[in-house]
């Protein structure tokens, strides 16, 4: 992938632009509704779903609590089975390790299975900078890569594209990357899938190195697990001589038996199927293959240190929360400015990047009022970070294959200020309706974490003063009673719209009516309504 999320403006501005794109809204509405219905049907079929969900949550919490022990157990089991384990503290180190392993094979290209972790670390761009071309093989990732685009959904990265757009991308770009699209390509999904099959077939049969992620790692046995649909995963995991898997340290499960819970939770929550077409598991070096496992931290231990926020590490990347989110359905994934969009992205991105504490965020970040309402007014501070700040020298053009715009920048190398503003706005990219928590197969209380992150982020002076005043009034019943009587008397003078910066709040909301008399006063006057 050559495009980059870096330097994107804060969420409200992205959202305002996205909701103005009627094609995008149409595509998203159709797709999220379809998959929501499928998931509901498949989950409804399982009588013990809530018990399964509780088991999933508990196994993950247990693993995270003893992560050090299980990581060591995994390392030993993988080594025993003939694999090599590497540890990467951040994105740069993971990219260096993978590039070094590929170079050691003497190859200059790799095939890739769709992997969130490698997107997070910007692996493709880092490999390109060292003259290695990474070919995405998942159909949606191929669409994104050919279109010089960004993924907008965890499961269906090209969800923002419809069939006509995909046909154009294939016709224009496939030839640059390999076998061209057929002359008479139509926009039928079947024809487009067939074009992808032909385009990638020879590459699968001839490429010597593959890079993957994993859905699960089993500490007890050293087994890795990949769930997929198309068979591109099986191709990459099976045919190449060398397999390199980059996996976040939170993907561990203690025992092989634990898989029974997650192989029931994930497919039904994710694609809305009883089971996804293909699941591959392998332990160490299989069938003569050379196997490397790169264990990735890249901010995960920072998330783990937060008592409330650490539950985000339970995430199994099913994307059910995206599909039910009223905000995601309207703005799509790009507005979140990260490979992790939607509700889970809103809590994961700021924590992984370490911008959640506000330490590196600009003073007076997002006011609480800047909810992503259509046409909502932007606070003046949320201006776009200029793309000019990115190191322009870091462009990598590999043998003319990569579009010249390919900016090879790993997130870790960027100044924190480039993403701090966006990240500070993410916890507000929600109406706190709680639908995401309802559907989460590992019961991550996303609204709880959103509120927690909002509290941690810096607030404008005016807001802090207002909150302090409200605290003073609400602290004593006598003060509250006086304030209520006063506001009751002055209610005629309260404007429908608030002045100044506070207008951002009333632009999209009505000020509640102030009653002439408080409930307590009414009760005293009427003796509980009896007089």
């Amino acid at each position, binding site marked *: 992938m050559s495009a980059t999320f870096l330097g994107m403006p804060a969420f409200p501005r992205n959202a305002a632009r996205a909701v103005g794109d009627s094609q995008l809204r149409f595509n998203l509405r*159709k797709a999220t509704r379809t998959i929501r219905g499928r998931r509901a049907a498949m989950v409804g079929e*399982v009588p*013990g779903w809530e*018990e399964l969900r*509780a088991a999933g949550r*508990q*196994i993950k*919490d247990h693993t*995270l*609590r003893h992560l*050090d022990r299980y990581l*060591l157990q995994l390392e030993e089991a993988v080594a025993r089975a003939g694999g090599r384990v590497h*540890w990467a*503290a951040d994105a740069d180190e993971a990219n260096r390790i993978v590039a070094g392993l590929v170079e050691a094979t003497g190859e200059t290209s790799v095939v890739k299975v769709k992997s969130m972790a490698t997107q997070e670390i910007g692996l493709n761009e880092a490999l390109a900078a060292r003259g290695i071309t990474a070919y995405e093989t998942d*159909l*949606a990732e191929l669409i994104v890569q050919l279109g010089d685009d960004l993924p907008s959904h965890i499961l269906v990265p*090209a*969800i923002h594209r*419809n*069939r006509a757009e995909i046909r154009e991308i294939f016709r224009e770009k496939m030839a640059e990357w390999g076998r061209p699209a057929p002359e008479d390509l139509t926009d039928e*999904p079947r024809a487009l*899938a*067939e074009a*992808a*099959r032909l385009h*990638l077939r020879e590459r*699968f*049969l001839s490429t010597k190195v593959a890079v993957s992620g994993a859905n699960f790692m*089993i500490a007890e046995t050293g087994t890795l697990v990949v769930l997929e*649909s*198309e*068979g*591109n995963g*099986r*191709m990459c995991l*099976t*045919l190449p001589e060398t397999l390199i898997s980059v996996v976040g340290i939170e993907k561990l499960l203690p025992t092989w*038996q634990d*898989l*029974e*819970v997650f*192989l*029931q939770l994930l497919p039904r929550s994710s*694609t809305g*199927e*009883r*089971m*996804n*077409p*293909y*699941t*591959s*598991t392998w*332990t160490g070096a*299989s*069938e003569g293959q050379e196997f490397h496992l790169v*264990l990735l*931290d890249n901010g995960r231990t920072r998330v*783990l*240190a937060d008592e409330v926020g650490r539950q985000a590490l339970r995430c199994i990347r099913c994307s059910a929360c995206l599909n039910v989110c009223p905000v995601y359905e309207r703005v799509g994934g790009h507005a979140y400015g990260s490979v992790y969009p939607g509700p889970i992205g809103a809590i994961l991105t700021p924590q992984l990047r370490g911008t959640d504490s506000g330490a590196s965020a600009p003073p007076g970040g997002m006011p609480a009022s800047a909810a992503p309402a259509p046409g909502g007014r932007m606070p003046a501070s949320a201006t776009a970070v200029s793309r000019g700040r990115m190191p322009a020298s870091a462009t990598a053009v590999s043998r003319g294959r990569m579009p010249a715009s390919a900016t090879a920048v790993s997130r870790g190398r960027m100044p924190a200020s480039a993403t701090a503003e966006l990240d500070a706005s993410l916890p507000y990219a929600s109406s706190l309706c709680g639908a995401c928590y309802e559907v989460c197969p590992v019961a991550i209380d996303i609204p709880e974490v959103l509120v927690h992150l909002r509290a941690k982020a810096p607030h404008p002076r005016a807001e802090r003063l207002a909150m302090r005043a409200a605290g003073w009034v609400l602290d004593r019943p006598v003060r509250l009673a006086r304030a209520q009587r006063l506001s009751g008397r002055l209610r005629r003078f309260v404007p429908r719209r608030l002045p100044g910066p506070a207008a951002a709040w009333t632009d999209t909301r009505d000020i509640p009516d102030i009653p002439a008399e408080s409930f307590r006063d009414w009760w005293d006057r009427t003796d509980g309504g009896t007089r």
Partner: protein
Amino acid sequence: MSSRDLILSRVRAAVAGAPDVPHTGPRAAPAAAGERTVELFAGRVADYRAVVHVVEPAEAAGAITAALARRAAERVVVPGGLPEEWAHAVRAHLGDGAVGDDPPLSAAELDAACGVVTGCAVGIAETGTIVLDTGPRQGRRALTLVPDYHLCLVRAGQIVPGVPEAVAALDPARPLTWISGPSATSDIELDRVEGVHGPRTLEVVVVR
């Protein structure tokens, strides 16, 4: 400090003082092993738009021949260890077109084959899943991946009710492939299309 030690020390610092959470939580009740397991399995496999037949043992060879004839397959891979009765049916129908994998076929040779006939390790009724473990009757993973057509024979006794029973029955030391219908994608407007990179046609013969 190595990155290994750095990550481990960060983990320890992060969870220091956090309350313990026991590992074994509630587990879903195992699916009821009913008499209708075979029918459930066949129905669920068919839901994925795979072709399914349920036959008596004496009819297995005939079902293989009929399937290969319908497919007009000329060159079919037969893994080592396929029961002689099944392998014989393929050879009798195709003659030299029935090819073994010893010595191993190249990827190009596999690509040139019309299909593959295998057994399996486990079938899962609830999800209509077939699990291969590269054991006898199945061969290495590439055999059921590169050819465009996979004919899989499942004995009724290999079918378990649900996912937990399958996990318990399988050996994680072997490379496993769980197959639920033909290769598919929903990446374009969430329209399901069968057949991308894996076999586009999956045909399953359940032998009672």
